[in-house]
C-alpha cells in the first residue's frame, strides 16, 4: 500500500478524479471488458425530479458496468458526482442495490462476481428523500450479505467525497480505497453547522474540514485501507490487488472501537493529528 509515486510516474499519470463516472468504471475494468447495463438508451430516469422542475438524466447519475477485473467477472457501480451532487434517488439507488443483489445471487450460485463501488455522493437526494433513504438501506443490506462471499471494494476518489447514508455503505465494504482528494464523513459540514451551530463547525473552514474527514486522515487513523494517488492505473491496480483473505471488516470490530471510545474525553477530544497516534494502524500494510 505504497502512497508515494515514483518520480517518472508523475509524468505519465492520468487523473482518475477528472474522469466522469462512465470512464472511471472503464478504467477499473480490464481493457475492453466494459459492458454497460441500463445505459442511457434504457431511459430509466428519476420519476420525481421533473415534478419539481429539475431535468432528469437518462442514467440518473449512476453507471452500472459488467466486465472483468484481473480476469475475474466483476460489476462496477460508479456514481456521477456531477449530476445532482452524486445524490442517491430512487432510480440511482435501485441501480446500485439491484447490481449488488444480482452479484449476491451469482455468488450464491457458485459464480463469484467482484463488486466495486465508485462513490462520489452527498448521500440521499433530498428531492426524493424517503425513497433515497430506503434504497440506501437496501444497499447496506446487500453489502453485508455479499461481503461474506466476496470482497466488496469501495473507492472514494473525490472531489465530491462520500457523505450521508452512503458513508455507511463505504464503511461496510471489505476494502475502502481513498485518495488525498477524498472526503468521507457522515454529516456534510453545512448540515453540522445548521444543526449544531457555527461554534461546533464553521462550514467555510476548509482546512479544518479536510483535517477531520480528508482521505489522508481517514487512512492514517485506520478508517480507510489504502491511500493512493489520483492516478487511474494506480487505483485500478489497487482494486485488482484486493483478492481473498481480507481482514475482518472494520464494522465488525465492535469491542475494539468501544474500548477506543472509552478512552476519549468528549470535553477534551483529541485533535486530528493526535488521533493519528492514538488510532495508528499497528501493521503498516493492513489494519
Amino acid at each position, binding site marked *: 500500500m505504497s502512497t508515494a509515486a515514483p518520480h517518472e510516474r508523475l509524468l505519465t499519470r492520468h487523473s482518475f478524479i477528472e474522469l466522469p463516472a462512465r470512464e472511471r468504471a472503464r478504467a477499473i475494468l480490464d481493457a475492453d471488458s466494459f459492458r454497460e447495463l441500463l445505459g442511457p438508451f434504457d431511459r*430509466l430516469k428519476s420519476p420525481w425530479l421533473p415534478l419539481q422542475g429539475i431535468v432528469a438524466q437518462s442514467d440518473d447519475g449512476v453507471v452500472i458496468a459488467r466486465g472483468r477485473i484481473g480476469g475475474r467477472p466483476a460489476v462496477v457501480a460508479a456514481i456521477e458526482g456531477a449530476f445532482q451532487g452524486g445524490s442517491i434517488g430512487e432510480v440511482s439507488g435501485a441501480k446500485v442495490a439491484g447490481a449488488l443483489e444480482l452479484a449476491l445471487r451469482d455468488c450464491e450460485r457458485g459464480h463469484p462476481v467482484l463488486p466495486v463501488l465508485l462513490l462520489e455522493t452527498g448521500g440521499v437526494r*433530498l428531492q426524493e428523500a*424517503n425513497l*433515497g433513504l430506503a434504497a440506501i438501506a437496501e444497499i447496506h443490506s446487500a453489502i453485508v450479505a455479499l461481503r461474506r462471499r466476496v470482497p466488496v471494494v469501495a473507492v472514494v476518489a473525490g472531489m465530491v467525497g462520500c457523505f450521508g447514508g452512503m458513508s*455507511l455503505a463505504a464503511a461496510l465494504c471489505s476494502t475502502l480505497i481513498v485518495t488525498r482528494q477524498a472526503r468521507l464523513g457522515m454529516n456534510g459540514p453545512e*448540515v453540522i453547522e445548521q444543526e449544531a451551530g457555527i461554534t461546533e463547525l464553521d462550514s467555510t473552514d476548509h482546512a479544518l474540514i479536510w483535517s*477531520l474527514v480528508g482521505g489522508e486522515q481517514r487512512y492514517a487513523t485506520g478508517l480507510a485501507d489504502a491511500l493512493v494517488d489520483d492516478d487511474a492505473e494506480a487505483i485500478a491496480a489497487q482494486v485488482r490487488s484486493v483478492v481473498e483473505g481480507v481482514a475482518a471488516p472494520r464494522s465488525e470490530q465492535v469491542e475494539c472501537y468501544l474500548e477506543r471510545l472509552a478512552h476519549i474525553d*468528549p470535553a477534551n477530544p483529541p485533535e486530528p493529528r493526535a488521533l493519528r497516534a492514538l488510532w495508528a494502524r499497528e501493521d503498516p500494510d493492513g489494519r
Partner: protein
Amino acid sequence: MGADPSLSGRGLRWFEALTGLEGLLDGGPRTVRVADSRLGEEIARFIAVVADPANRFPRARQGELGLEEAWTLARQLRRTVAEDLGARARAIVAVVDVSSQAYGRREELLGIHLACAAAADAYASARLAGHPIVALLVGKAMSGAFLAHGYQANRILALDSTEVLVHAMSKQAAARVTRRPVEALEQLGERIVPMAYGVRAFARLGLLHGLIEGVNAAAPGADDIERVRRELAAAIDDARAGARDLAARLTSPAARETRAASIAVRRRLTEQWDAP
C-alpha cells in the same frame, strides 16, 4: 438498571410499556435500553435508544444516535446472535424514536459513519442469521439514525400518529441544503410523497408492514399496549415465515405503485445482467 427518571421520551415510554421493565440487560451507556420480555408465545429482545440529557457526548443529549449509542447497539445485537447460536434465533424488536445521528465535529473525527455502519451491519447480520427483527416506529425515525436503528429490520411497523416522522434530514437542514424555505418544503411534501415527513405518507411508499391505527402513541393505555404487542407478535411470525433479505419491501400493492421505478430497474438489470 431499572426505571430511570432522568431519561425521557416516547421511545423510552414505549420501551417501558412493552417490557414492563423486566429483564433489563446491562452492557453500555444507559441510552441503549435492552430487555427481554414475553411476546406471545416467546421471549423477545427489545432494544431502544433514548435521550439522556447528561450524555457524556454533548451532541447526543437530545435523543440523537451518538458514537457510543451506535457501537453499543452493535454490541448488544452481536451478543444476541452469539447467545442464540445453535438454538432458536430470538425475535428482536427495535423501538424507534431517534431524532438524528449526532451532528458534531468530534463525531466526524471519531467516525460516526463507521459507528452507524456497525449498528446497521449488526442488525443485518442478525437478520441473516435468522433472527426475525421488527422495527416499531413510535416517534422520529430520521436519517442516519434510522439507517442504524431499525431500517435493517425484516418488518417495519409504525404507530399512526402525527408525531411519527420518517425522513432523510430535518426540515431546517433540508431547507438550507436545497435552498428552499421550510414552508416550500412542507408544500412539496404534500405533492411529492417521498418528500413528506408524516408516517401516513411514508405508508404510501410500501415500505411498512403495517400502520397501527387508533392507538394513543403519546400516553398508551393497557389496551393500546396489548394491541401493539399482538401486532408485533404477528409481524414476527410473518418475518419468520419469510425471506431473510429485504425483498418484501418491494411486493406490497403500495410499493408496486409508488416504487414502480425501483422494481423496473431490478427487472431490467436482471434481463441485461448476463451478456447476450
